[in-house]
């Protein structure tokens, strides 16, 4: 059986994927997409966050086969050829990146939130990012970045 799904807009077909393999392992080790990070491996840190049909999930807790017929977006799929995605840009501009290990997961969680709710208040942002741990920034600048990303996406600032 072939595992077929859409990854960052393009169809992938893979054979011989074990049933127990996680989506995280598949992305990093089989496909070489190392933007998705492994922190805890048990669903606590959010470093492995990806979008599955637009919703943020922990790829360490998702079996690769659960993606069958669905659409997966990783951090590699966000930027255009030239430009960063507005959420990425906001993180850079707000100084929300230090070591960067949490950043791909944070950005995808933020994107998933902003797609559903373009103008979240601070409580909503905190709740949506509660599953993403950051060891460096103290979160303050991350929350600022998400608010800024909201403004960029709403076209209120450039």
């Amino acid at each position: 059986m072939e595992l077929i799904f859409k990854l960052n807009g393009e169809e992938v077909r893979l054979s011989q994927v074990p049933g127990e393999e996680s989506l995280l392992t598949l992305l990093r080790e089989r496909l070489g997409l190392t933007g998705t990070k492994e922190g805890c491996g048990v669903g606590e840190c959010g470093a492995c966050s990806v979008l599955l049909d637009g919703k943020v999930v922990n790829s360490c807790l998702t079996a690769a086969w659960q993606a069958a017929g669905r659409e997966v977006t990783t951090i590699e799929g966000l930027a255009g050829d030239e430009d960063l995605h507005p959420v990425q840009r906001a993180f850079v501009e707000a100084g929300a990146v230090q070591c960067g290990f949490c950043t791909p997961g944070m950005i995808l969680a933020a994107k998933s939130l902003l797609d559903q709710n373009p103008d979240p208040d601070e409580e909503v942002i905190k709740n949506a990012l509660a599953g993403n741990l950051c060891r460096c920034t103290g979160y303050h600048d991350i929350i600022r970045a998400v608010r800024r990303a909201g403004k960029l996406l709403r076209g209120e600032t450039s």
Partner: protein
Amino acid sequence: MSSFIIARDLPEALEIMGRGEARIIAGGTDLMIHLRQARLSSRQAPPVILDVSRLPELQRLEPGAPRPFVGAGVTFHRLESDPEVARHLPLLAQAASMVGSLQVRQTGTIGGNVANASPAADGMTALTALGARAEIASLKGYRECSIEELVTAPNKTTLAPGEIILGFTVEEAPPAGQVFAKVGRRQAVSVARLNLAISLDPQLGDPRIALGACFPSPRRLRDVEKLIRQGEPGRQLWQAAGQQAAQHFTDVCGWRSSAVYKAPAVTRVTERALERAWQALGGAA
């Protein structure tokens, strides 16, 4: 190496389960952790992983029906965001909103919560208070049982090999004074140290209280329910109920070291949850 089968319909799923070597996956939030542990300790993965998350039977969600039904494959996120669930089964909506992170709520399912029987499972405590019954299917047919009969100890259920939980029914729409409360290490994401689910009706004729996480499996506090049935609504009764709940807790668990903080926590959480439930019914505090 496990093979992965995405069940197309219920008969196919039951047939595969009937062969006795498949493990069920719904959201994956528990199973993937088990598989990882198995790999780390060089234990074998199950021969077959059966994905039941796309079965329509398990996705059915009818909170407003005369006999409300919640499919086993419904995610916590769906429970916390569906307006009908908020209207008819607010207890379940509240409990679902307190489970894990958004990532976990968007994949984790209420059926998985019960089938894996983690003592800290928030959804399970809410279902217990609602008096919900699990609907279970296998090749042999259907059966129904209460959550307390189904979940007997940490990670232990009376599910037989080959059985699949289809979902949960609530006998009748319970009254609207429903409150879920939880104590954990931090507010977000953390696993519950204790959780409490309460439903009250204006006459206090059918109060239901379930306490979980601090017991091997969630249980109804029937002695506390009786006390409430016989009392006058108000602060005194809520306080007495809180104390009775703590008594029940220490009777079952004894004075272990953690009881030093858990018993007073049970008292206060119960008292406050009753107060909130009564207020939700329009009563004075």
